[in-house]
């Protein structure tokens, strides 16, 4: 999936993946897509809930070899 920006949040523990995601999203234009890579298992439920509460759209996510990838479209 195409993205406008990639955030590497691997190795970061909660709350940092969300803190960084929030910051990166702020630097994008509405409609642009942020790709997030994280290794914290909690990131999946948290990013899903965070996107819902902020109105950004979680387009897709997957897991490969312990790395979780998320694609989020800015509201």
């Amino acid at each position, binding site marked *: 999936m195409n993205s406008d920006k990639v955030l590497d949040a691997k190795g970061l*523990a*909660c*709350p940092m993946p*969300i*803190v960084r995601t929030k910051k990166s999203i702020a630097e994008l234009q509405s409609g642009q897509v942020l790709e997030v890579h994280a290794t914290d298992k909690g990131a999946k*439920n*948290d990013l899903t*809930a*965070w996107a819902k*509460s902020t109105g950004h759209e979680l387009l897709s996510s997957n897991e490969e070899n312990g790395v979780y990838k998320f694609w989020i479209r800015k509201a």
Partner: protein
Amino acid sequence: MTAMGTQKVTAKELTTIILNKEDLFILDVRNESDFSDWKIEGISVDIINIPYFDLLDDIAPALDAIPADKPVVVVCAKEGSSIFVAEQLAEAGLNHVSYLEGGMKSWSEYLEPVKVADLSGGGELYQFVRIGKGCLSYMVLSNGEAALIDTSRMIDQYQRFMQKKGVELIHAIDTHLHADHISGGRALAQRYGAAYHLPPKDATEVTFEYEKLVEGRDITVGQETIKVQPIYTPGHTIGSTSFLIDNTYILTGDILFIDSIGRPDLAGLAEDWVGDLRDTLYSRYKVLSEELIVLPAHFGKVTELGIGGLVAGRLGTLYSENPGLNIEDESEFRRTVTENLPPQPNSYQEIRQVNMGKIAPNIEEQREMEIGPNRCAVHDK
């Protein structure tokens, strides 16, 4: 490296606060779905949920919700986000703010040892309350020897306890093949060279050697002073076995709880086992003395915790008060234990595979499988 005014509280300390019914306010900062699935409970506990990501820019929503006069414990999944939020609260001027060390992960793993009684032969009986998950395990100690029943995964905690008591494990026993938690029985038995016992009917697929639990074959602890008598009581699983200790205590595993009864569906054979469950609850236990003290393998609600955290009840009292023992009509009983059951425990199928020795996940994966409540009773809604 926490800010001034922020302290950490351990799962053990939090357990003491809850068992003493001291006033406590918990701010749980996990996401809503994790919170609604499973949270810290206690009679004196007030708890609210505001996800940490809603507090990153502005702590005000939390400040508004916290009563000024109560000590506050901030809780999250592991601890990182709770430290972050606790620091913000302390900086905003709140006193008595702490966070739960290790978060819900530690909460799920802590075992509180509660003494049940001195036994007639000079031994002791302890109940280990896994307060965060509702699991109960038991230790019989006598003359330097110990037997453990329904051991939790965190075997280090039992080991430290046995060291302190100066006893060696000689028997690890599981009343049945567990589906809600990973048994530590086999691992601990290996460490001590002790025997690991399982009901043979639950062990048809296991990949390891074990001692067969059979009715009539008593297990002794401490030079034959304490008898542990197995009684075959199928229903939750086909092999489920209860134990009579010192002619006074009956360990009922996941068959009979204080306020509920076991569910027969976790091994996929609910319909087949309903009859066994009814027979055990309404016939096999019924002929036993009403004065027996029931010690189950789970509790479902914090109201079941008695003095010091002990979960126990007189069999005769359970026969008059436990809703699961008072369903006269057989078809109504069948419906109660097979329909509208609570959700199954997390990863219960994988957990059964681990307990059969078929898969061997690493410690992190094991922790992950066990997250959440046990939900082994039919009334755990």
